[in-house]
């Protein structure tokens, strides 16, 4: 069936499988690292904002501007701009590991903003009650903010991973490999449309799986 419907995919099958792995690799590692960075940044934004539990208006203003600035850079330009930094960190600017640097820089501010919004959904009076009970800032972060907002954090994580899958395809422009790369450099460039369609289908499946797993976890942590 594959040979009938997707003749050109069948002829480059090992390369196609390899590309799928590259997409998974880029998504997984950048999600993990950007996840930690974004969660941390989101927490810092909430904690240091004016009126926050550890208010530091100048630090907040700095962090807020950095996040806005990074979010304003179009990803395709970010890929190019980041090249020297990537070369410094990874040692090369091409290949799948090299794509992680711009992917992380591209996605973590987006995630940080969403985490910030999720954490801000807590009523300030609940935070005040925790302070009245003698909780320290660290205790409030872990026992109140992250705990109370867990379902929201999971939902924004899903949205972020889905956006990230989209970004990995663009990283093909700097020779990252992956399904985006194969869709353009093989499917589009050689007029082998079935390769493009097959790459798209795999990406849609990845997105659906991410959504289903995310919804399932979010429902699990919500008690009702």
């Amino acid at each position, binding site marked *: 069936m594959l040979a009938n419907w997707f003749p050109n995919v069948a002829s480059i099958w090992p390369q196609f499988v390899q590309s799928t792995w590259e997409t998974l690799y880029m998504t997984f590692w950048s999600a993990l690292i950007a996840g930690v960075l974004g969660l941390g940044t989101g927490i810092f934004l909430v904690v240091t904002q004016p009126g926050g539990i550890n208010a530091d208006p100048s630090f907040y203003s700095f962090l807020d501007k950095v996040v806005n600035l990074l979010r304003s850079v179009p990803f395709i330009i970010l890929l190019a701009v980041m090249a020297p930094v990537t070369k410094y960190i990874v040692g090369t600017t091409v290949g799948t590991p090299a794509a992680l640097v711009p992917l992380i820089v591209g996605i973590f501010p987006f995630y940080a903003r969403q985490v910030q919004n999720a954490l801000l959904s807590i009523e300030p009076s609940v935070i*005040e*009650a*925790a302070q*009245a*009970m*003698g*909780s*320290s800032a660290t*205790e409030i972060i872990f026992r109140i903010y992250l705990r*109370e907002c867990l379902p929201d954090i999971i939902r924004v994580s899903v949205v972020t991973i889905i956006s990230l899958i989209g970004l990995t395809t663009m990283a093909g422009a700097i020779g990252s490999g992956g399904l985006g790369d194969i869709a353009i450099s093989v499917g589009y460039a050689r007029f082998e449309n079935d390769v493009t369609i097959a790459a798209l289908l795999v990406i849609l499946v990845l997105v659906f799986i991410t959504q289903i797993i995310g919804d399932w976890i979010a429902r699990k942590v919500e008690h009702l």
Partner: protein
Amino acid sequence: MGVADVAIDLQDINVTFERKGETVTAVNDVSLQVKKGSIYGIIGYSGAGKSTLVRVINLLQRPSSGKVSVSGQDLQQLTDKKLRGVRQKVGMIFQHFNLLRSRTVLNNVEYPLLGKKISRKDREAKAFELLKLVGLAEYAQSYPEELSGGQKQRVAIARALASDPDILISDEATSALDPQTTASILELLKKLNDELGLTIVLITHEMQVIKSICQEVAVMADGSVIEQGLVGDLFTAPQQPLTKSLLSLRLM
């Protein structure tokens, strides 16, 4: 009144905020003393500065000037860590309960004991005892959103008692409740005052609340205490027009 009998001593408290370049005075030169084991009411219309004033007691609101002492300790001299220790001895309940929706009723009551040197088993047992005290033992495994307003406030009271406080601050705790539920919550507070010797500071805009459980009262308007004294005196001989109006509202 000897120093040892004073639970809360506020001296010359001022609280000002900067808002759009203007200085707003929320609390204006207030001094008051709350006796150990008494129930002290603060009454006034909304915006009078009552909530800001009670937040000075546990330094949730730092005063711009004035001195705050609780159980003989000068709070403004304490380190953050010591202050958190004092806050654990000053329970607080709120108009909107402020329970944690991700935790069960039992876990909510356990919250103040997290991170303390107490085993999980003892912690749960203590929280369960407190739930019994407020009459909600059968709801231990429920979540706050499954409870009525009055039940939520009982959970909040149990939670406030978990760290064995000497003082309980009640910030409009009955204002979101119907009259019957209000009466039952006030009865519970009276019982805690009688049985545990808990000092209670209660703010409200309802004279009925003051009349039913308070011994002393301060009337606030525009950030100042305009009249204070024993509840009986206030009812028989109110001095200020505002006090008279608060009293007559009740009679209508």
